[in-house]
């Protein structure tokens, strides 16, 4: 016989689906199957069951081999590294629950470190733009129940947030959207013909790197001012048609992704997209929302903002928080050689940072906290495997619309394995002793 656990929260992407069902063995030790999840989410649960999982911390030897150690020794090494460094960087935090993030921030404050999350290579530019001009946003529930005009700008939810369209944005029949996708207009702006673009009523195939110009052209079109014949590869008539569709919406929303946040223009693209949203509120109700990637990257921003006042790239080296991406952001710190110790948790800069930055991680003392073997763990001096958040431990996480949701523990981690929070607590206690903090 098996047991089925219902209402499980998926710890993969920022959509944070909370309707999963997981069947486990009677003793509650093994996951047998996952229902309702997308392929990526199901895999997140199932690969935690791998028999060849690393279950104990290990030090990398000079010849590249690994030597197993205890959590105590691993915590000693981590605490000494962080407490002894002149400018340590604590990066990641996006696949970690809020409780562990808060514990990590305490360590960062004691050690006067730089703390950064994966927004640095993702939606950090969004956060800059939000600080510059604000964010007229809403919750995904409002989108489901009210939105009749959906714009996906520079993202591909078909593959990156597979259940987003069925749960919130396109297909569900909500309170005022009883006809589901038949009552919704879908616009996709993407230089590529993605699977999402193929579904759209209107696909604006924008010239790569010219989103800023196209957004600006929409604002000009709202005001009925003069426009050039073609902007960013899109004919003037098409821009005016799209502008009119947006104005005619009862409730519209722009979902945007890395296609605009990390292409030419960066924060200015988002700045202009928010200005588009603001302009549209002269005519109708319009909202805008970033499609956050990691399941709790939003939570990391929330916790950092709650504790230090800034959502990412926080520099605590002078004893008070400072924030200026370009100076205090991870890639810049690494590329410029400003960092002498790197602590990575719940993310994989080894796979996502420029190689110049990755080389710098390899050259300094480094610790990687991750249940998986990743390119980052491969170049770290110490690899600490931990329990899977949202699978083997619960904890709080924030959905992409800033709604906090408590995750559920489904099975126990392998014998003797610690959670992120438990390991960080050990490090925090040691750091306090080393720094002489009561």
């Amino acid at each position, binding site marked *: 016989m098996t047991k089925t656990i219902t209402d499980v929260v998926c710890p993969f992407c920022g959509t944070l689906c909370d309707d999963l069902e997981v069947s486990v063995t009677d003793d509650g030790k093994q996951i047998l199957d996952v229902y309702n999840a997308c392929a990526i989410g199901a895999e997140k649960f199932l690969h935690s069951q791998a028999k060849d999982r690393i279950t104990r911390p290990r030090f990398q030897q000079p010849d590249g081999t690994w030597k197993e150690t205890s959590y105590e020794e691993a915590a000693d090494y981590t605490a000494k590294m962080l407490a002894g*460094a*002149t*400018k340590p960087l604590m990066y990641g935090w996006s696949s970690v629950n809020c409780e562990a993030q808060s514990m990590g921030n305490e360590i960062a404050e004691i*050690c*006067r*470190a730089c703390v950064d999350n994966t927004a640095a290579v993702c939606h950090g530019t969004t956060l*800059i733009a939000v*600080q*510059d001009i604000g964010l007229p946003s809403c919750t995904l529930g409002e989108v489901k129940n009210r939105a009749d005009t959906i714009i996906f700008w520079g993202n591909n939810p078909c593959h990156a947030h597979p259940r987003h369209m069925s749960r919130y944005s396109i297909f569900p029949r909500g309170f005022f959207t009883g006809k589901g996708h038949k009552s919704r207009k879908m616009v996709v702006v993407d230089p590529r013909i993605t699977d999402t673009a193929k579904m759209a009523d209107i696909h604006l195939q924008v010239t790569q790197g*010219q989103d*800023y*110009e196209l957004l*600006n*052209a*929409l*604002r*000009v079109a*709202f*005001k009925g*001012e*003069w*426009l*050039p014949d073609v*902007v960013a590869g899109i004919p003037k008539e098409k821009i005016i048609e799209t502008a009119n569709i947006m104005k005619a919406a009862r409730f519209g929303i722009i979902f945007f992704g890395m296609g605009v946040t990390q292409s*030419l*223009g960066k924060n*200015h693209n988002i*700045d*202009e997209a928010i*200005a588009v949203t603001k*302009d549209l509120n002269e005519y109708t109700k319009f909202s805008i929302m970033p499609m956050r990637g990691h399941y709790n990257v939003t939570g990391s921003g929330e916790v950092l903002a709650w504790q230090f006042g800034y959502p990412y790239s926080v520099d*605590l*080296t*002078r*004893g008070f928080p400072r*924030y*200026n*991406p*370009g*100076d205090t952001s991870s890639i810049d710190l690494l590329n*410029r*050689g*400003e*960092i*002498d110790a790197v602590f990575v948790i719940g993310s994989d800069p080894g796979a996502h940072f420029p190689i110049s930055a990755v080389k710098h991680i390899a050259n300094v003392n480094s610790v990687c906290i991750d249940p998986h073997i990743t390119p980052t763990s491969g170049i770290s001096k110490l690899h600490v495997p931990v329990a899977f958040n949202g699978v083997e431990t619960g904890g709080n996480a924030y959905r992409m619309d800033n709604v906090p949701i408590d995750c559920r523990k489904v099975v126990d981690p392998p014998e003797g394995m610690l959670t992120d929070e438990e390991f960080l607590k050990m490090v925090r206690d040691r750091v306090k002793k080393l720094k002489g903090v009561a």
Partner: protein
Amino acid sequence: MATVTITMKNPPALYLEAEYICPDEFAGKTVAQIAELHVYEGNTKSTLGKYFEVSGDAGATAEDTKIVVRGDVKKVKYIGMKMSAGEIVVEGSTDLYAGAWMTGGRMLVKGDIQAFAATAMKGGELIIEGNAGNYLGAAYRGDWRGMSGGRILVKGNAGSDVGMYMTGGEMVINGNVDVHLATHAEGGKIIVKGNAPSKVAGQMVEGEVIIFGTIDVMMPGFKYVDDVDLEIEGITAKFAHYVGDTGERHKKRKGQMVYGHLYQKI
């Protein structure tokens, strides 16, 4: 004017934050007192004297104080931050925030400077003989007030986001700039003798941008008005005159819409 010379003798392993290298801080202090001023390397506080050899004399006030910075200061941030008077000469290249928030005086950098130079500058003069980085004369993060006064001259090229949220003052760049020149500008004047690739003066509310070279992609919010003859920096030439950003908010003055002005040499 009394001159203090500081020479880098013991370069930092990481980077140094030295906002006290400023005439306002040096004024009225002896050489020994100057060497005791604080600097930070990461989270470690130490003194200017640990890294620099200090010689010469400081004036009684900032106006009477000139600072000459010698040696390799490529890893020193915040030189000339918040200076209000006097003079700084950096004989090589320096790092982030050079002359940031300066309100007066004169700062000359003979090499290159990195990003965030002259952040929210209010007055004075900053001259860079080499290249400047990104965010020259821009607002600090989250602020809506960039450079509001003073003058910047860059003899080489400058990076992206130059003059973001600029509200006043004048900037001359002899070389090229990168994207997002004068974004969100609400005043001031920027002259670029070279080229600007794209996103020039996006979301501009008010102010002037003059480009002598090419613009690869023009913002759709800029509308051609007429050709005008202008005398810029002693050069008289014909310029195409555009107004914008027509997508952005604009106020009216004496019944007339106030736009940003973009001039491109024909």
